[in-house]
């Protein structure tokens, strides 16, 4: 049994995020994606502090970004973040950034996080709290 967990976060483009070509600098986007992750986490109870308080870190080990169209200062984009179910001890998210004025997709991305303990040792198995979280959301 599986469901799709998804959230949408509106972005505000800061003036300082635009580069000399008048578009949002490519290095800015990982921060937008992180904002979306935090928003998703708060919404569904998979936030960084919950992970931390259960004794784990969840660092990013993979980030894949495709830039389809530029974003410019003044545009009103949103990030759509979708949890991708996985059996491995990973958190995988897919992202789309959409210009809410035209509904055009400007970016797609995927991130992979793994779990480490507080000594930064890689967890091979899903932490119990994470398995419980998946069950609570009908993901397994």
């Amino acid at each position, binding site marked *: 049994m599986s469901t799709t967990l998804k959230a949408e976060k509106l972005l505000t483009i800061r003036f300082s995020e635009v580069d000399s070509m008048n578009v949002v600098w490519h290095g800015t986007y990982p921060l937008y994606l992180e904002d979306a992750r935090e928003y998703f986490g708060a919404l569904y109870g998979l936030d960084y502090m919950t992970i931390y308080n259960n004794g784990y870190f969840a660092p990013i080990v993979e980030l894949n970004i495709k830039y389809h169209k530029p974003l410019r200062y003044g545009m009103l984009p949103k990030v759509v973040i979708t949890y991708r179910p996985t059996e491995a*001890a990973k958190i995988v998210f897919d992202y789309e950034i959409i210009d809410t004025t035209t509904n055009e997709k400007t970016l797609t991305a995927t991130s992979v996080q793994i779990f480490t303990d507080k000594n930064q040792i890689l967890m*091979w198995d899903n932490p119990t709290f994470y398995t419980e979280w998946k069950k609570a959301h009908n993901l397994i």
Partner: protein
Amino acid sequence: MENLIEELKKEIIETLNLEELKPEDINADSEIFGEGLGLDSIDALELIVLMEKKYGIKLKDASEGKAIFRSIRTMAEYISKHRTK
């Protein structure tokens, strides 16, 4: 054992999307991590799922896993001894 080794090569290619590799390109005795196949510890997380789903083997301990995942042959040897399906 040889059949299991061939099966594992295919499974690993599929599980980890190693599309550029063919089973015959993989030496059963090469290191899976580092020099040989060039996989990393994050890839091991998928191998763990493979072990559990396909062979019914639950690995808990990373230090134990290191020896098991040394090469395709060591994996096959471990699976043939401990498989529950």
